[in-house]
């Protein structure tokens, strides 16, 4: 099944029946110069063919409803189907973004409630739901920082990011017109405080931090870090990708963060969709509030809601309309389903599952070849180093990952974070059962045993997948990124 849709069908075939022309036909409405001469060569295909093509394509995907997906930093937790049902209600799904707010009170109330809930989870009072994803939220956050400093007559030039930071952090810094300054990591897996002290000065606009960070380590110096950062008048930014570890347990606002982004498609279970849609709301402290993107939702004394576009200090708009409302519906449904207790329980179980898996790997001796990179305990995820495995068994983390495919598991995030040699970043999430964690640990042990006998098995894996290892170098050297027609 490797034909593309453009290689199927036949001239004249179609699924769509165009409504009949019901108005008097008029010629020459569109001057020839503006007209397209040749129609785009889109597929010509019947509906049955169309359905079969994409149904069969779907079967060439691994997915969360089919198996364990411990992709670190991505929080691949179960996506309840209720959320799809409520998001599809016409009152949500067919609501036009420019509908008169007086006739969209349900949507505005939903967004208002979601803002309040996110503010409570973050421990920061003001929320904008507008950003389209985490990295979009980061951009919003750094631009807010810029507006904040500018408003106080300052032109700062640098943003600090630890070497554990996700790639979107430094990329965002550049996009926002700042210089990236890297911070080292200490022996505990936290920020190197001395390095921070050395680099924190009045030219620094912001420190972007993930806590727990991408090592799954909660930085126990967080208070001191906040003190240093605020001491030089910079803002402290919280990358919320790992919020799933601390919901109802510890709040970024209480840790001293000024700006937080959420990934609704992670902690709040918006389905990942093969790479989106996502949603990256931000929560901020009072002093950042004036700069929030517009419009903001307001609530009148009579309980009615409105959109306020008159925000003189606002950084403006990051995108069209009010953000990814469809994602808001799902995450709001999630929050209402779980409630205060449920959210806390989710984080507790996420952390429990991660630590249980660490313990299983220790018990099975896997840890000898794949030691925990830092510490003994972890939060909701943890990082193993494949260096001993590579040295002693002659298989790389990549080989291990590919061999896991034959065991029916999605591999963890690999080769990230960068500071860990041959890294595996594993996040089980709270929606997995103990049986699944045991089976995954057993699979890792089995692969190591197998490699001890014969490393070539893993090196040539996978064997049971729709395709085997693909030539990525060739793909990049002579890119074929569209179907030649």
């Amino acid at each position: 099944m490797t034909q593309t849709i453009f290689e199927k069908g036949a001239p004249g075939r179609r699924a769509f029946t165009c409504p009949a022309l019901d108005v008097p036909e008029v010629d020459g409405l569109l001057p020839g110069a503006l007209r397209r001469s040749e129609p785009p060569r889109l597929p010509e295909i019947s509906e049955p063919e169309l359905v079969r093509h994409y149904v069969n394509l779907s079967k060439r995907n691994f997915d969360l409803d089919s198996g364990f997906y411990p992709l670190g930093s991505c929080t691949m937790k179960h996506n309840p189907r209720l959320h799809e049902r409520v998001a599809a209600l016409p009152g949500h799904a067919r609501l036009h973004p420019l509908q008169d707010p007086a006739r969209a009170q349900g949507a505005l109330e939903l967004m208002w409630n979601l803002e309040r809930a996110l503010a409570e989870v973050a421990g920061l009072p003001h929320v904008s739901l507008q950003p389209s994803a985490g990295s979009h939220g980061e951009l919003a956050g750094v631009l807010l920082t810029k507006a904040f400093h500018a408003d106080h007559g300052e032109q700062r030039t640098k943003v600090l990011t630890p070497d554990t930071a996700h790639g979107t952090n430094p990329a965002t810094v550049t996009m926002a017109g700042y210089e990236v300054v890297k911070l080292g990591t200490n022996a505990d897996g936290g920020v190197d405080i001395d390095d921070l002290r050395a680099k924190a000065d009045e030219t620094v606009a912001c420190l972007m931090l993930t806590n727990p960070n991408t090592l799954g380590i909660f930085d126990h110096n967080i208070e001191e870090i906040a003190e240093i950062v605020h001491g030089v008048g910079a803002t402290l930014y919280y990358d919320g990708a790992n919020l799933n570890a601390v919901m109802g347990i510890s709040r970024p606002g209480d840790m001293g963060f000024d700006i937080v982004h959420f990934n609704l498609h992670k902690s709040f279970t918006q389905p990942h969709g093969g790479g989106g849609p996502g949603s990256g709301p931000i929560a901020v402290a009072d002093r950042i509030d004036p700069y929030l993107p517009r419009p903001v939702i307001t609530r009148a004394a009579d309980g009615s809601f409105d959109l306020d576009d008159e925000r003189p200090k606002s950084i403006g708009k990051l995108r069209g309309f009010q953000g990814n409302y469809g994602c808001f519906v799902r995450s709001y449904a999630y929050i209402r389903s779980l409630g205060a207790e449920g959210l806390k329980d989710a984080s507790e179980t996420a952390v429990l599952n991660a630590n249980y898996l660490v313990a299983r790997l220790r018990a099975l001796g896997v840890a000898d070849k794949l030691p925990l990179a830092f510490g003994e305990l972890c939060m909701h995820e943890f990082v193993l180093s494949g260096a001993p495995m590579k040295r002693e068994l002659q298989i790389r983390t990549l080989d291990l990952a590919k061999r896991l495919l034959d065991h029916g598991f999605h591999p963890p995030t690999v080769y990230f974070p960068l500071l860990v040699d041959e890294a595996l970043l594993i996040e089980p999430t709270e929606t997995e059962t103990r049986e699944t964690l045991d089976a995954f640990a057993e699979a890792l042990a089995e692969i190591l045993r197998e490699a001890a006998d014969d490393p070539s098995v893993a090196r040539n894996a996978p064997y049971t997948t729709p395709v085997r290892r693909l030539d990525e170098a060739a793909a990049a050297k002579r890119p074929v990124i569209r179907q030649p027609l």
Partner: protein
Amino acid sequence: MLAEIGVSSLDELFDRQIPAAVRLQRPLDLPAGMPEQDVYAHLRALAQRNTSAEDELTFLGAGMYDHYVPAVIDMLLGRSEFLTPYTPYQPEISQGGLQVMFEYQTAISELTALPVSNASVYEGPSAVAAAAYLAKLANGKPRVVVSRGVHPHARAALRTLAAGYGHDVVEVGLRDGVTDAAAWETAIDQDTSAVIFAQPNFLGAVEDTAALAEAAKNSPAVVVGSYDPIPLGILKPPGECGVDVAVGEGQTLGNRLDFGGPSFGFFAATDAYLRRMPGRIAGETRDVDGKRGFVLTLQTREQHIRREKATSNICTAQALNALAGVVYLSWVGRRGLVELGELLLQRTHYAREALTAIDGVEALHSQPVVREFAVHLNAPVQRVIARCQDAGVNPGYALGREYDEYGDGLLVALTERRSKAEIDRLAEVLGAAVAAERETAGVSA
């Protein structure tokens, strides 16, 4: 499980990792959880407090449009295999998603007549800003020239982003509904990093995009066009008009209105910009057995590899919405898209005639229109709209919300869902509303 871990309680797990001072010592102040049926009832009650396109006869567009979404799309997007995985980092088990990206890129490339397309960006307006950022990285020039025919939200997003990386934004006004050619030419110089227009523009007018592009020919500017994909079945495509980068809002391609999102933005370009594209790109290759396969390619552009040197910070994009897009384009098909374009062309003309026949309603411009048009009301537009909505018809968008220069302008949009009978109904209701408002005005005068 605690025993295996070697801790005596859950609390110990956290006490040993999180300083007490930053632990939340109380329950979150949120309502208690609810059974599924109650959450459904609550979300449904909220939905019922919205007036959706299912509840009124709507001609509201202005960037998002009430096209019919075929049922196959619900089914396919609902399949776990498309709905629940993440970005295809492991190509061996992600061929479905990767091939979809490849097919999507091909469809967008065909639509735009440009050789390069990425696998989606967030949505339309931010795609315009992303195109300007590409120009900044490409030529480093200080200024962007943007037509006021570009969606107001896109211009706003451009300004917001430009304030960060540093572009001055210069706007060029409209004249009889299209970009003022003279002002456009004079605005473009050797410091111009990008020029940006929309097709059709925000007033629904079809621009002479070839001329707009031509004007930038002797400048370093990257020529950027923002397109509504639906009329591209009948409108000359960017690739034939000297456009370097074509972007646009993909909602109209099989995506729901969803009060504004999620949808997707498309981003296409000439070969020159291949290695400067933001976002994911899927490419064709072979596996070790020589089998055809697809992978994410040219990743050296991206944040997870290049970090601060990346062409963009985008990571999670809109894969599922882009899937809807390519399924929609395949469902409509080569001939269908042309028929759809012609149908909208005719109905839009009919609607413009019908409305401008009402007294108190005049065409705001006389340019060709393909799915949306602007009129001027000799009555307070907001009140007219309210009257129409009370009669079950949403006549469109009040241009005054974003354009002082078009105070009582009304932007009216068509889709294949709006029949002649419904257009006639609009004319009737709008006529009555305008008359009533002029009455009261007359009286109060």
